[in-house]
């Protein structure tokens, strides 16, 4: 045991003697790990964010399809769904998108329905949406310079401008959900978008037993063949696949960088200076075995990779959670005129670290095995004479 520690000590001091040669390698290695760890951290945080946001989403949403496209839903469909055992409350939803010419942003406009207040309670002002008033998200308020009491105009389907007084603004905490949201009363909504009383955008179905969701979704599909039931699990799964796919894409693109690094590491390890060869020769002459020299080389690699790994990992962590992932988020997040600003919740687990290790340290170690063996079998006799 003590022998291994002594070799480790020797490795540390020999690295220190050649700090500048090794520093280059450590910097490049750290940068690679920084990049990869940023991607992995960012993906995981997005996934968690999606889970957190969808936690309060309805178990089941039923939409109507016509010719494969989303259609408005006749309210009478609700009766048929109501008859299915296990179904709780059924609420029709009215929502849509509104393109605002003056700001160039898309808003999500939603009609107030019962239960909505309990779900999004974070706000300043009051959540009273009567006729002619509205509640807007922070992003909308900022884009249109709205304050409580200001007027928010919406151009209706008939071309007439309708004015809504802002009764409340959602706070930053619910940003991800409410940033581009405008909530108006149901009657106003139908007027603005010219939607008759008999139809809704889609239907939210409450289900008593969460394990029955898939079953009930199937039954709805059978009873109403032109509908598309969407379960919360399905949405979550889609997000999961999407973010995995995106991060996998980016990681695959970086494989080239890893390869370049491996070649660099190989090159550094192969190109021993005359001084280093001399050193190994002397070590062997004073009784070091080939396996001892290989262990020395192993420790050197170990120190370099752990140092770079920690530096890169901490750098990636800071980049994502303190500097808001400024470099990579455009590739992984998506974009929009009114885009929520959100702080990612720090999340790190052993699995992420293991994946990063597989991506970086294992190729590095593999690249240095043969060169370090070549160094270790140096014949003292030949080197010292020549």
């Amino acid at each position, binding site marked *: 045991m003590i022998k291994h520690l002594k070799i480790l000590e020797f490795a540390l001091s020999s690295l220190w003697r050649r700090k500048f040669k090794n520093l280059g390698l450590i910097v490049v290695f750290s940068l690679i790990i920084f990049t990869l760890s940023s991607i992995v951290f960012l993906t995981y945080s997005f996934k968690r964010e999606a889970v957190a946001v969808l936690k309060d989403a309805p178990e089941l949403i039923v939409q109507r399809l016509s010719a494969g496209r989303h259609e408005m839903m006749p309210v009478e469909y609700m009766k048929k769904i109501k008859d299915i055992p296990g179904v709780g409350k059924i609420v029709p939803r009215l929502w849509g998108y509104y393109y605002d010419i003056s700001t160039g942003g898309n808003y999500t406009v939603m009609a107030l329905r019962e239960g909505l207040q309990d779900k999004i309670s974070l706000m300043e002002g009051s959540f009273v949406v009567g006729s002619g008033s509205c509640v807007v998200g922070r992003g909308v308020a900022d884009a249109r310079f709205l304050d409580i009491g200001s007027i928010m105009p919406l151009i209706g389907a008939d071309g007439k401008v309708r004015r809504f007084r802002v009764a409340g603004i959602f706070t930053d905490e619910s940003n991800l959900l409410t940033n581009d949201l405008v909530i108006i009363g149901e009657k106003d909504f139908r007027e603005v978008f010219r939607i008759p009383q008999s139809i809704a955008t889609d239907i939210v179905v409450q289900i008593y037993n969460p394990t029955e969701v898939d079953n009930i979704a199937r039954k709805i599909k059978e009873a109403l063949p032109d509908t598309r039931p969407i379960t919360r699990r399905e949405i979550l799964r889609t997000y999961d696949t999407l973010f995995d796919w995106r991060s996998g*894409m980016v990681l695959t693109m970086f494989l080239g960088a890893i390869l370049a690094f491996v070649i660099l590491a190989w090159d550094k390890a192969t190109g021993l200076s005359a001084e280093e060869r001399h050193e190994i020769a002397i070590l062997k002459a004073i009784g070091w075995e080939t396996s001892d020299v290989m262990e020395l080389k192993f420790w050197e690699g170990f120190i370099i990779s752990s140092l770079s790994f920690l530096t890169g990992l901490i750098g990636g962590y800071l980049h994502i959670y303190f500097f808001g992932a400024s470099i990579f988020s455009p590739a992984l997040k998506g974009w929009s005129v009114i885009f929520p600003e959100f702080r990612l919740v720090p999340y790190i687990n052993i699995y992420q670290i293991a994946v990063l290790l597989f991506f970086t340290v*294992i*190729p590095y170690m593999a690249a240095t095995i043969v060169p370090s063996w070549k160094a270790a079998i140096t014949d003292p006799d030949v080197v010292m004479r020549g």
Partner: protein
Amino acid sequence: MILHPGIIALLVGSLIVLALLLYGSVLAVVILRRWDIKSSSEFQLGLERKTYLVSTIMSFVLGFEVLAIFLFIYTVDDLHRQFVGAMCATGSLNANPVGWYVLYVKMLLFFISSLWIGINYVDQRTEGFPLVRFKYGMLLLVAPLVLVDVYLQSRYFLGLTPDIITSCCGALFSKEGGGLSSSLSSLPVRPMRYIFFTVLGLYVLAGLISLKRQKGIFRGLMGIFSVIVFLISLASIISFVSLYFYEIPTHHCPFDILQGYYNYIGYPLYGALFSGTAFGLLTGFTEILKKLFPSLEKINRYQRKWTILSILFMVIFTLISLYPMLFSSFTLEGY
């Protein structure tokens, strides 16, 4: 194919390791054919030097395999969210049944790898390297196995498409289903419990006796016993140990205990079982080698160490599986 970071890491790592291993195998073939310890030719000297390279490559490869089995199982477990109806690793494995073979091959590789590392360890510390031929012969068996592993693993991951409706552990490991997994689940709890603890107790006893008396027979017994303990433990985990962790009398899944919801207890549980078995196997296997190569007398010292480690890991395994039986309010008396 799913572009999951874990999948890419596994595939990339496996390819690197395979390339190294093929290189090592080429060297091994040369060593096998031309090895002559008595010769003092330059060629033999070169071969002796190459053994260092091959050992290092092999330790790297096999160390990788040990890590890879955990990464694989975690990745598979992590993937389950992308399949309809899957709730843990079982679902993801069923999504493309090749996955089960990957798991079996990886388990086999784990044990062969640890045997190889142990034998190499002994060989390098024995004068004259008596085990060189044996070692490199074994290496030529490992290489195709790794090749199979890489092939199956790629086929598994490439063949995965989300949205396949898979049956989950609830269906596979329930008493009603057919096949091996459900017959394991329906093993009666009470006799199974006796068998489990008896076998573990006997194993530890055999280990202790072999420590006390320097008789080879007990060490050999440990090797055989470790395999039996391993199989019975796996069956018991499915049959009743897992139930105590879930506190549900009908849920027999061997993978759910790996999830964060159960505090990842599965990792130390399986880790201890696999390590204990590997050290037991090593003790028994080297006992046979001792009969074949008389110059391996010094091996006793290492066997002692391995026996102690094996007992230690098995005790840890027993304690972890015992813990919920003793300290949770859940009982299986009615079953």
